[in-house]
Structure formats: C-alpha cells, structure tokens
C-alpha cells in the first residue's frame, strides 16, 4: 500500500467520488427517476408538470457551476476554495436532483462550506452581504444537507499543487527554457481553474492525470519529458515492456481526459456570462425547473426549522409527528428511514 497510486486509492475522492462514465450516467438517471417519483405526488394527477431529463439537469448544474465560480471570483475567494466549492456542488447534484433542492441556495452554501473545508475563515454575515436578498440563515440552512449529500467527504484533491510539482520538475530538467515552462504553467493553471470543474473530470480522473491533460493541451512535449518513454539504465526486457505498457495506458487516459477538458476551455468562461445566446438558451430550462421543482423543499430555511422542531419534540414525546405529517409524503419516506436505521450507517449505503 505504499506506492503513490495505492495512497491515492485510500482517499475519499477515490473511494466515494470516482466513477466510471457508465456508472455515473446510470447514477444520474437513477437520481432523476427518484426525484420524479417523489415530486409527482405533490401535483394533481391531471396537472403533472414536465420534468427535466438527466441531460437537462446536467446542463443546469453546469450553468450553476459557472455561476458559483463567478460568485467566488466576486467574493475574491482563492482558487482552491473556489474549486472545492464547485466540486462539492457538483458532487451534491449527482445523488440529488436539481428539481429536489434549489441550486441557487446550495450554491451559496457550497461556497461557505468550501471555505470551511479549506480552513479559510470568512464571516458568514460578510458572505451573506455579498449576495442580494440573502441572509446568513439561508446559507446555513442547507449546510448539513450538503454535508450529507457529499457523504462527508470534505477532502477534495486538486491538481493545482500537482501542477506546481510538475513545473518544478520541468524547470529542473529544462533550465534553459524558462520562458516556455512559465508560459505553459500559466496556461495550464488557467485551464485547471475552469475546465475540470465544468466537466466530469474530477469524477473520472485523478488529479495528476487532470494536471497532465492540461499540460498536454498546452505543450505536448512537456508531458513526454515528465513521463519518459523508458527509464534509462533498465536492461530487463520484461520491466521495459511493462513500463511501456503502463506508459501507453497512462497516455491514453490523459488524452481522453484532455478531450474532456477541451470541451470546456477557459475561454468559454466569458461566454457563459457574456454571450446573450447562451444565457438565453438556458432560460427555458430554468423556467421549466421553476415549474417542476419540489415545492416542499424549495424553502430550505423552513425545512431546516421543521426538522429542528421535529427533533426537539421527539425528545419530549415518545411518538413524534411522523415525517409525513411535516413533509406530506408518509409512505416513501418511512420504509427508507427504517432501512437507514437497520443499516445503521451514517454515510448511507454504497452509491
């Protein structure tokens, strides 16, 4: 368990929040289905709204991620916090639907909790002041929900420090090409600040792979220097072939990651906010979301308050008012609760 790869496998990012593309897709479809099942009883049978498809949901999450990045830039939060908050936000909306919980609220909560997770102190009131029509209570309301949604995995492994390491190594190996390396460094950093957050790169690739992919987009030769074809001084043929195989596999993975990152190059950051067409194209989606969202869970503050009250009454009375009385969906919740209690697993079952 001592190799670098094994040590990464121990991280919560790998254990809980890494998926193969197919399983991630299945997970999103499942989340969407469950949300539909839960929300449809809220509406009259003859007035069922048109629900969002998983693809539309993904598009909305992407949009709100850009909003989150913009908000973080506005609040002048450091890059790591911005990225952590964005990853929290995206992780939350893998197992929760946009229709169930309002993304505009959770966006702020993610930012605040991202600060906490990265050990960066910011006053809650100060953060709330930054946003229009926002109280600190609103930001806090979704905090525990968010923690549950991200399965209490607060450690996000970013590719930024990996990039610093790679650049140090490159500067050692190429002392005469200082300018080239510095340029690659700046460009790769720009990519890492934006592209992996808008794509699923954090779910499918490891930080060092993402970093290599960013470098590959900027300057292919630099990656060849970092991952040499064959180690000099290796005579054993078997070792060489296994090394070559491994290298091919790594290069292939990095290239697929690069393809993913190239879909959202950092130049698109401006587009999201400035091109009217793109903003307009999202408008019907947001309207659709307004119509089909879970009205009972739209107000996180009230939800939180109800839950607190329920918890306090539970202490006084042996039989508390059932969850269904508060939320209006007795049947689907109760068996679940029983199951959760039976499993006795704070973090829930495997995804």
């Amino acid at each position, binding site marked *: 368990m001592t190799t670098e790869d094994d040590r990464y496998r121990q991280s919560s990012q790998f254990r809980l929040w890494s998926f193969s593309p197919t399983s991630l897709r299945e997970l999103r479809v*499942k989340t969407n289905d469950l949300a539909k099942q839960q929300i449809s009883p809220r509406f009259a049978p003859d007035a069922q709204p048109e629900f969002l498809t998983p693809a539309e949901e993904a598009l909305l999450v992407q949009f709100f991620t850009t909003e989150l990045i913009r908000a973080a830039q506005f609040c002048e939060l450091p890059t790591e916090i911005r990225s952590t908050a964005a990853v929290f936000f995206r992780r939350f909306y893998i*197992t929760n639907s946009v229709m169930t919980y309002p993304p505009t609220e959770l966006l702020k909560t993610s930012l605040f909790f991202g600060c906490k997770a990265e050990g960066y102190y910011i006053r809650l009131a100060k953060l709330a002041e930054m946003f229009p029509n926002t109280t600190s209570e609103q930001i806090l309301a979704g905090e525990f929900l968010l923690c549950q949604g991200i399965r209490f995995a607060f450690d996000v492994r970013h590719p930024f420090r990996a990039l610093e390491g790679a650049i140090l190594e490159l500067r050692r190996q190429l002392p005469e090409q200082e300018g080239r390396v510095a340029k690659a460094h700046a460009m790769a950093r720009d990519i890492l600040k934006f592209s992996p957050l808008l794509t699923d790169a954090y779910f499918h690739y490891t930080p060092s792979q993402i970093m290599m992919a960013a470098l590959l987009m900027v300057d292919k030769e630099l990656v060849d220097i970092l991952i040499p074809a064959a180690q000099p001084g290796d005579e054993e043929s078997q070792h060489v072939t296994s090394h070559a195989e491994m290298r091919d596999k790594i290069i292939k993975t990095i290239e697929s990651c690069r393809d993913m990152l190239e879909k959202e190059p950092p130049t698109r950051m401006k587009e999201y906010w400035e091109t009217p067409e793109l903003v307009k194209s999202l408008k019907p989606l947001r309207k659709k979301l307004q119509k089909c969202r879970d009205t009972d869970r739209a107000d996180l503050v009230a939800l939180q308050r109800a839950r607190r009250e329920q918890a306090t009454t539970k202490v006084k009375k042996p039989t508390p008012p059932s969850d269904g009385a508060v939320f209006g969906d007795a049947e689907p919740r109760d068996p679940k609760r029983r199951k959760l209690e039976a499993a006795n697993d704070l973090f829930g079952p495997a995804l």
Partner: protein
Amino acid sequence: MSRPSGTSTVSVRHASNSNSNSSSAFVSAPLPPADQDEICPVCKTTRYFNKDMEFRINTECYHRMCKTCVERIFKDGPNQCPYAECHKTLRLRGFKTAFFGDLGVEREVDIRRRVAAVFNKAEDDFESLDAYNDYLYMVECLTDDLVNGNDEARKKAEAQLAEWEAQHKAEIERNRKLARESDETRQKRLAAEQDAARQRRLQELQEDAAERANAARFREEMLNSLQNAELGHAEEAVDRILLKKRGQQKRDATLDAVATMGGGSGLSIRGLRDKRAPVQDDKPYDPFGGLDLAPQRIDLSSEKLSQYKSEWLDITRTKEDYIVGGYSSREYLTRALFEAFSGLGVFVAEDKDMREEATVAASLEAVSTGPAGGKMDVDGPF
C-alpha cells in the same frame, strides 16, 4: 511428590460429609458441620462411647467410616461399600486416613498425585518454553477433567492417562528415577549444608572462646611483663607484646582466607534444555513498522531536492526570516512532487468497473426494495 505421604500426623478434625453416593458429588459438597466428626455413619457409634474413634476413607468412593467398621467389614476380603446405593467393591488395603478435612480436596490431591506420577516430565526435558507450557496445559486440562469433569469427560481423561502411561512407560520410569536421584542429591546437599552450618556455628563459638582466652592471657602477660620489667623500660615491654599480637592476627587472617577458598558452591541451575539466551532485537524502534513512503516515480532524496529552484523556494532557502523560524522548503517540495505523480497509474474507469461488479447486485436490490429506496434522498438522519 515432595509431600510426605502416608505418615500423616494431622488427625481428622473436620471429616467430610459422606452421605453422597457418587464421588463426583464431592466436588460441590459444602463443608460438613463439625459434629459429623462425632458419629460414624455406618455403625452410628458416637465418640462418647469410643474416645479413640478414627475415620477412614477409601480412594474408590471416599465414604467415611470408623476404623472399627473397616476392620469388621473388610477383614475377610473385599466387600461392598456399606453406604446405600454405593456399589463399589473395596479392599482393606485401600483404606487410609484422610489428610484434609474436606474430602473433595483430599480427592483432588490424590488425583493430582496419580497424574503427576505419569506425567513426570521436568522443565529440562523441553527445548522451548512454548513446548513446556503446552505440555503443562495439556496435563492441567486432563487433571481438571478428572477432578471436575462429568462422567464422560472423566472416562475420556482416564483413557488418555492410561494411553500415555502405556506409550511412555520407559520414559516415565527414567524420569522417576531421575527425580528420585535429584531428590536424593538434594537431600544430601541440604544435609551437607545443615552440617556445614552447624560446624560453622561451633567453630565460631570456639573461636570466640579462644579469643576471649587470648585476650585474658595477653592482658595477664602484659601486666606480668610490666611487673617484671626494669624501671623506665615499660614502653619497650608493651611494644614487644603488641608486636607479638599483631603477628598472631595476621596468621589468623590467612588461615581464614584458606578456609573460605576451599568451600565449593553447591549451586545447580535447572531450566529448559535449550539454554540459549533469547535473541535481542537492538534495532531502533520504527514507528511505521517498516512502511516505506518513498514514492517510486520520483526521487525525493535531499541532494535531488536541492536542485529544484524557483523564486519562492530561493527566498525560503536564503532569507533568515524563514530559516530562523525553522521553515524547510523540503516539506513543500516533497508534497508538490509527490502529488504530481500520485495516482497517475490509477485508472478510475477500470478500477471502479471491477469493484462495481461486486456491489452492483446489492445496489440493484436496494433500488428495487422501495420507490425511494435509493440514496438520493439523504435528508433525515434522525
């Protein structure tokens, strides 16, 4: 083994309750009231009529009866135990006086003596302490089965005992002889030591007496010489006598030294056959238990680390503000370089697909159990 057997000087003050019919009942039998000692349960004679009444037991069933009853019933050969429901056939030869008041203890001691006669290996017969401990454990288990076990366990233990005796006949005999020899030598040594001690005491007494006599003589001599010495030569006379005394003391000291040199030490060491000292591990303590955290894709030795340069690193390396505070660029460098290559060979899609095959069935089941059986809805942990 070393307990003097047979010649018991302790009279039975608290003979045990012997109304039970099976020997296993002794195990949990409470101590009998003291007046049980007063009446023989067989002939009902009381101590009032027979002042010298003495109780006997047989190791077959441990039922108490008075000496008169034993002689009356078993004088003409083997007979059945007079207790109701006890069908053991007893012989006169098997009777003895109980050493312990509690017959349960008496029985256990008898059994232990019997077992020890068969399992008579000593510590020096074993190579390792583990083997010796295993042997002791086995013997103790067997003994416990015999003493406290139910009928079945007891039968099994008896069989085991007999088997062991048959298998290790020669060895047992040899060990017994060795034990007897070592016992004898020990007895001899003890006797010799006692003898020597007595001799020493006698000698000391004699020496004391001699010294006292010497002192008295010396005093007398001195007085005599002072008396006889010419006038004005008293000091010379005293000096001469003192010189003589000193010479005497020196001679005594050498004699003593010779005596102690000759006395050999009767010390003998017993223990495991394997006398090697345990191997000592003198290596420094490794808190990580041999865990090697050095990455394989990059060399993080300190001479290599010093080759990495950047304006920030140069500042931390040269500026005294940082150096004095104890900041080392090494931590940052190792972490950054480690992260650059950590997880490069982890292929999430492959790894996760492999894991999924194991868990997919479980998760499908979870989804199918209820409409909201998935984990999408994580709101109530209460």
